[in-house]
C-alpha cells in the first residue's frame, strides 16, 4: 500500500493498520453453512449500518482450522472482523471465547466513536461459536436417538 496518498481520515500508524486490513482483507468469503463442522454467526442490523457474518470451521479435536467473514459496515468494522478471523485461526474453542473487544480496539487503535465495531466483532465470534455448539449438541441428540 503506497504511503503517498492522503485521505480525509488523517494519518498515523494505527490508521494504516485499519487501511491495510481494509484494502487487503484476510479471509473474505463463505464456508458451507450446512456442514456440521461450520459455525455461523450473523450479528448486527442493516438499519444500524453494521452487519457481520463470521464463519468458523472446527476440526474433530475442537481446534478452529478455518475462518471466513463478510461485513457490511465502515472501514473499522471490516478491519475488526478481518482481524478476528486472523486471531481465531489455530485457536481452540475455549481460547476463541476469550477474545475481547478491548483487545481488538487496542490492536487497531479504534477511536471511541468506532468502539462499537470491535464489540460487534466480539459478538460475531461468540455467535459463531454458539452456533457450532448448538449444531454439535443436535448431532449428539440425533446420535443418542439413533442408538435407541
Amino acid at each position, binding site marked *: 500500500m503506497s504511503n503517498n496518498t492522503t485521505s480525509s481520515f488523517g494519518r498515523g500508524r494505527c490508521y494504516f493498520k485499519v487501511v491495510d486490513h*481494509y484494502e487487503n482483507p484476510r479471509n*473474505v468469503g463463505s464456508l458451507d453453512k450446512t456442514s456440521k463442522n461450520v459455525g455461523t454467526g*450473523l*450479528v448486527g442490523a442493516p438499519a444500524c*449500518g453494521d452487519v457481520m457474518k463470521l464463519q468458523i470451521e472446527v476440526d474433530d479435536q475442537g481446534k478452529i482450522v478455518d475462518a471466513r467473514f463478510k461485513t457490511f459496515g465502515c472501514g*473499522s468494522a471490516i478491519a475488526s472482523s478481518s482481524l478476528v478471523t486472523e486471531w481465531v485461526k489455530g485457536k481452540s474453542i475455549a481460547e476463541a471465547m476469550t477474545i475481547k473487544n478491548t483487545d481488538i480496539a487496542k490492536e487497531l487503535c479504534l477511536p471511541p466513536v468506532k468502539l462499537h465495531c470491535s464489540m460487534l466483532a466480539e459478538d460475531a465470534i461468540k455467535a459463531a461459536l454458539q452456533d457450532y455448539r448448538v449444531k454439535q449438541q443436535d448431532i449428539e441428540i440425533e446420535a443418542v436417538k439413533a442408538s435407541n
Partner: protein
Amino acid sequence: MVADIVVFIGLWLFHLCSLLAKEQTGIDFSTFEFSCIQHSGNSLDICQYVGYLMRNNIFTELIKSRALEKDELRPLYMDFQATTPMDPRVLDAMLPYQVNYYGNPHSRTHAYGWESESAMEKARKQVADLIAADPREIVFTSGATESNNMSIKGVARFYKAKKNHVITTQTEHKCVLDSCRVLEAEGFDITYLPVKSNGLVDLQLLEETIRPETSLVSVMTVNNEIGVMQPVEEIGRICRSRNVFFHTDAAQAVGKVPINVSDWKVDLMSISGHKIYGPKGVGALYVRRRPRVRMEPLQNGGGQERGLRSGTVPTPLAVGLGAACEIAQQELEYDHRWVSLLAKRLVQKIMSEVPDVVMNGDPEQRYPGCINLSFAYVEGESLLMALKDVALSSGSACTSASLEPSYVLRAIGTDEDLAHSSIRFGIGRFSTEAEVDFTAEKCIQQVKRLREMSPLWEMVQEGIDLKSIKWSQH
C-alpha cells in the same frame, strides 16, 4: 544547443535583475531554492547550475521540478456542495483591496473611505443584479449561516407580539433548524413540515398549516444534500396571498439557477460566498423593501447596513462576492449546461454498470450538480475509504459525529440501510470529463469489490428477502 544558449542568457538576466531587486526592495533572491537541485544562488553557483543544465537536458529538469514540488497527490475534488475553489478572476478583483485600497468603507472623511465605499456599493449592485433585486435591499453578512439566523430570529422576534408561529421544513440546513429550536425555547410555535419521498414540500399541506399567527415560512431553494429544487414560485405565491413573509436559503441556488426575487415573491434570501466560487467568510441577505420586511437586528452597533447588521463591511470580501456574482451571472447558462452534461454522464455510467443504485430526491426537480446515490448492500464510509483518490461526502452515520444517518435522507423516507449507503457527488464549474470518468470507473470497481465482501449482497443473491430476517440488536 541554441535553446541552451537562450536559457543561459536568460538566467544571467535573471541574476542581474535579482541583484537590482535586492537593492530596490531588500528581497534577496539568492536564497531561492530550486526544488530539483539544491542551489544557493550566488553568481558562482549560477554558472555551475547553468553548466549542470547544459550537461543534462534542461527541459526534463524543468518538468521534474514541477512534479517534485509536491510529494503528495491530492484527491480529485467532487464535493462542490461543501465549498468551491475561488475563481481566479474573483481573486484578481479582491487583491487591490487587501493591500492598496484598504480603507474602512464607512469612513466619511477621506479618500480611503470613499474609494472603499464605492467598491462596496459596486459589489452590492453586482449581487443585486444576479437576483434581480435593488442594491438597497442587499445586506452583507459573514455568510449564509448568519443570514439565516438574522432572518429567522429577526423577523420572528419583531412580530412576536401578534404572530408567534413559524413554518419550516425537515430538510432545512442545520442553521435554520437550530435557529428554530432556539425560538421554540423562547416560546414560539414552530412547525417542521414533512416532505414527500421525492424531497419536495407538499403545497397543500403548507397552505393548511399557515395560520393567522404565522409570521414566517422558511424553505430552502436547493437542498445541499440531495439537490432537489423546491417549487419556490408557488410557495411565494401562497405566502404572499396569506400575508406571510417567505424566507429562502438560496446558498446552493444563487448563481446556479436563474433567480428573480420579484417573480418568486421572496421576501428574504440568504446568499453564501464560498458556494459560488467566491471567498469564504462573506455572504449576503436580501431583505425586501416593498412591502417592507421589518426585523430585529442580531448584531448591534454603529448602524451599518441599514441598521440590520452593524459592523465594518469587509471590503475585499464584499468585492469578491460581487465579482463572483457578476461572473456567475455571465456564465450561468454555460455552467448549467456543462454541469448537466457531466452529471448525466456520471449517473448514466454508474447506473448502467451497477445494479441496485438509488438516486435520492426527485429526478426532474433538481439542480443537476448535486447527485446523491445510495448503493445498496455497501456501507457509505467504506466506499468513501475505497474512493480515497476522490474527495466526496456521504450521508452515512459513520461519517457524522453521532451514529445517526443523515436527517435529510430520513426525512425523505429512505430505508435506514440505504441511508447508510449514500454518497453525494458534487460537480461544479471546474470539473472535467476526465475527473467524472475516473470517479465513475473507480466507483463501479469499488462497489463491486465491497459487494463481494457484503453478507447482505450474498443473502440477496441466494434469494433471501432481507426484510424478513430478524436482526440481532447490539
